[in-house]
């Protein structure tokens, strides 16, 4: 899609540490639920496994999404990359089936199963035809409860991971992202990235032990959507998840102490610079998350209307994309402003962005601007979070993970409506009085700015 006029392209580049950011997205930028009507049932099985269900008998599919607390922030020092490696081996043999047998049996069902790890979760989604769920689920259960981590696939996936690290070693964007994470999060696990050495340190026993600590019923969230009723779901919950150990044993990872005011420059002679400016924000469980989310929306939100888009693109033609997005973990968060521009305009574009941010922090939004952002945030939920069977399943997992409650889809409207111009102004002043940590990748020298 060469001509996509979107500004979302780079919006997840900040999450370089995680393999896939789908859940991270559900938990961050669009954490705010909907007025869209959705009949969510809570189903608890005999063995006390709970899931949320949206039943739709007209759907030809059944999708089950699940997530365990854990994720890449659990990687011990010196063994960075462990969670990703464990996740990549979950479909490489389980129970009596070696890698090839497991994969071929699953492939022949026509269903699809994917696992992914993010910063705080190890998650998966299985998509099945409604009348062919038995075998895929049987194999899913094996993968979750009895993964083998056999020597052959282990050494293969380890070499592949090492090769990927090597492939990126000279890429200025990848290296810039690593340097940015290190600058922001320092010694915290989020500041450490997989290296050739850390990947070499990981053993099969490490993966088996990480699996055992992570995959348990206590820290598990499940969403099911499609042509499946409550009774059948309860049976499936016991069959697939019922044999997992009761209690997980995750490492205790405190929130990071984020370093602001740092400047990271990755010099590379290419036509265009990319810039990221990272400011403090709030966590997804913080009462001010609605205010923070509206700030991101007004500054550089998801439509084609925002202060940064207007100033950098529409007025000056300085960039193709300019945006602001929240990256909110449950307990902490930050806000990143990003854009790219021709090398010789780097300084001009940064100045223009800073001016936009300063004005916003000083004067706050108008009532009309805030109302517009509220309308958008309230109305956009169905499109951004409920657009497909799989999207609904992931959203159900995200809501449970944040302890939102099933009535949250109605409550969110009030929570947004309650935000005032003063709330926005107060929080914006706090956030933007802090000097951001900035990353510039492009044809600039450290000190040019």
């Amino acid at each position, binding site marked *: *899609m*060469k*001509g*996509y*006029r979107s500004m979302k*392209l780079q919006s997840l580049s900040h999450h370089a540490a995680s393999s896939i950011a789908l859940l991270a997205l559900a938990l961050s930028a669009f954490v705010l639920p909907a007025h*869209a009507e959705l009949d969510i049932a809570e189903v608890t099985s005999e063995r006390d496994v709970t899931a949320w269900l949206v039943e*739709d008998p007209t*759907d*030809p*599919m059944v999708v089950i999404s699940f997530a365990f607390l854990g994720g890449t922030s659990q990687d011990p020092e010196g063994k960075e990359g462990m969670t990703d490696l464990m996740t990549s081996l979950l479909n490489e043999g389980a129970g009596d089936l070696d*890698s*090839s047998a497991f*994969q*071929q049996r699953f*492939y022949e069902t*026509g*269903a*699809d199963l994917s696992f992914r790890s993010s910063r705080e979760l190890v998650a998966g989604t299985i*998509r099945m035809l409604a009348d062919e769920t038995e075998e895929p689920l049987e194999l899913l259960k094996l993968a979750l409860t009895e993964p083998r981590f056999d020597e052959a696939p282990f050494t*293969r996936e380890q*070499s*592949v991971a090492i*090769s*990927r690290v*090597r*492939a990126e*070693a*000279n*890429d*200025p964007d990848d290296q810039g992202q690593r340097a940015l994470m290190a600058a922001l999060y320092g010694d915290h696990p989020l500041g450490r990235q997989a290296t050739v050495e850390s990947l070499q340190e990981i053993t099969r026993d490490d993966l088996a032990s990480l699996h055992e600590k992570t995959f348990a019923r206590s820290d598990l969230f499940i969403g099911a959507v499609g042509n499946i009723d409550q009774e059948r779901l309860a049976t499936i919950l016991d069959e697939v998840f019922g044999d997992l150990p009761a209690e997980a044993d995750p490492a205790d990872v405190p929130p990071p102490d984020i370093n602001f005011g740092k400047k990271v420059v990755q010099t590379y002679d*290419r*036509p*265009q610079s990319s810039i990221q400016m990272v400011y403090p924000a709030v966590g997804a469980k913080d009462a001010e998350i609605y205010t923070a989310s509206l700030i991101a929306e007004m500054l550089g939100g998801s*439509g*084609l*209307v925002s202060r940064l888009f207007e100033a950098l*693109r*529409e*007025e*000056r*033609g*300085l*960039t*193709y994309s300019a945006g602001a997005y929240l990256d909110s973990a449950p307990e902490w968060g930050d806000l990143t402003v990003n854009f*790219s521009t*021709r090398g010789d305009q780097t300084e001009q574009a940064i100045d223009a962005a800073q001016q936009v941010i300063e004005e916003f922090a000083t004067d706050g939004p108008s009532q009309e601007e805030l109302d*517009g952002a509220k*309308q*958008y945030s*309230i*109305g*956009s939920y*169905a*499109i951004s979070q409920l*657009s*497909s*069977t*799989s*999207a609904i399943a992931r959203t159900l997992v995200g809501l449970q993970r944040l302890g939102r409650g099933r009535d949250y889809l109605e409550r969110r409207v009030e929570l947004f409506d309650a935000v005032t111009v003063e709330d926005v102004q107060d929080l914006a002043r706090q956030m933007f009085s802090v000097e951001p940590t900035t990353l510039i990748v492009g044809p600039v020298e450290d000190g040019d700015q």
Partner: protein
Amino acid sequence: MKFLSLVTALCLFVGAAHAQDTAQQETANMEVETFMLDNGLEVVVIPQRRVPVVTHMLWYKVGSADEAPGHSGIAHLFEHLMFKGTSNNGPGVFDAAVKSVGGEQNAFTSYDFTAYYQQVPPDALEDMMRLEADRMRNLVLTDEVIETERQVVIEERLMRVDNRPSGILREAINAALYRNSPYGRPVIGWMHEIEALTREQLIAFYDRYYRPNNAVLVVAGDVDVESVRELAEKTYGQLETGPELPPRERPTEPPARPEREVRLHDPRANLPSFTLNWFTPAYFSEQRETADALLVLSEILGGGERSRLHQALVVEQRIASAAGAFMDVNRLDYAQFGVYAQPIETRELDAVEQAVNEELQKVIENGISESELETAKKVLASRLIFSQENQMSRAREYGTMLMTGGTVEDFGKTRERIEAVTVDDIREAAQNYLTTQRSAAGYLLPEPPQEEDPA
């Protein structure tokens, strides 16, 4: 080369997306309806009512392959200009209307089409139709607007192409693969030609192509056919029909003898990667059986972890970190088939290339097994159903079909077409079309090692 694996998924999905088995047809697709307004605008309605959202997409039968020589990038620059306001609705009015209801809007340009879409609550559909119909004829194009947007497009080109080795290489591979077809030109345009496009050229382009009789409207989601018909008459129906356009006949490829390959050495590539690309019969051409056979082959050869390329290169020989195949069927004149592999270490590049060629040779000489074919058919059939879960992908599937030579008679036929493929079809298609004469290879290579100073 992450972009290639993404392309695989998209192409297979979108290209193959219009099939269901009979049961699915009844639940998911029974109500798809089409009609035409008096001014020639074709309308497709796809009711799908789980969430209160409607996807409104207007497709124009013009893309980069329709551009006059020397005007590359005009279709895409024009797509950007369509967001700049009209004599009835000034700059920002359309965006504000979308945003105030929590909607999204965007557009995309490809070789053979340009499409504009909004996703909004059903109540806002009439506004979207009114605003979209308005900008089909009433755009205001000042020099100032054009210059600013030209700069934005230049930034877009820098971001997508010139700033990254994979973008630079992809452009060069296409230019080598197509020596006469306009598919050899980048959709976004060559930089020097983007810079030279004039207001007069843009206005002439608008007047020629942005007409109801050169467009297709696709509405999917929480709607019914009758209300769409009524709203379409009231909005688009008021537009005058445009001049009749000649058939879209573009230059085609002559036979080629020399092997074509392009190499890019770039310091950012720490490990090499390798692709082979072929131009093959289009999905809706007279050689549909060939297109179907190659589509199924792309799954067997390189669709995922169970594919021949992944198994041979990544699992058995362990010389690659990734290997696969893709097929882009969303084009009018030719489909494009490709394979790619990333050596696990630089020194394995020759072995990787050899292994890829061996796998291709095996298909050409021995074909594939019946059981591989049956499994691939089952997997593709499931995937077709999965792809329907998203109303946007359904809208895209029908729009793309009508832009690339398909007709309403082709709706819902993909499954059938896949089912009809035989092992002989696949062997023949591979023999006849996956040939050196129809291909171009691309290599992304690390900088050669610096010569040691002998002193």
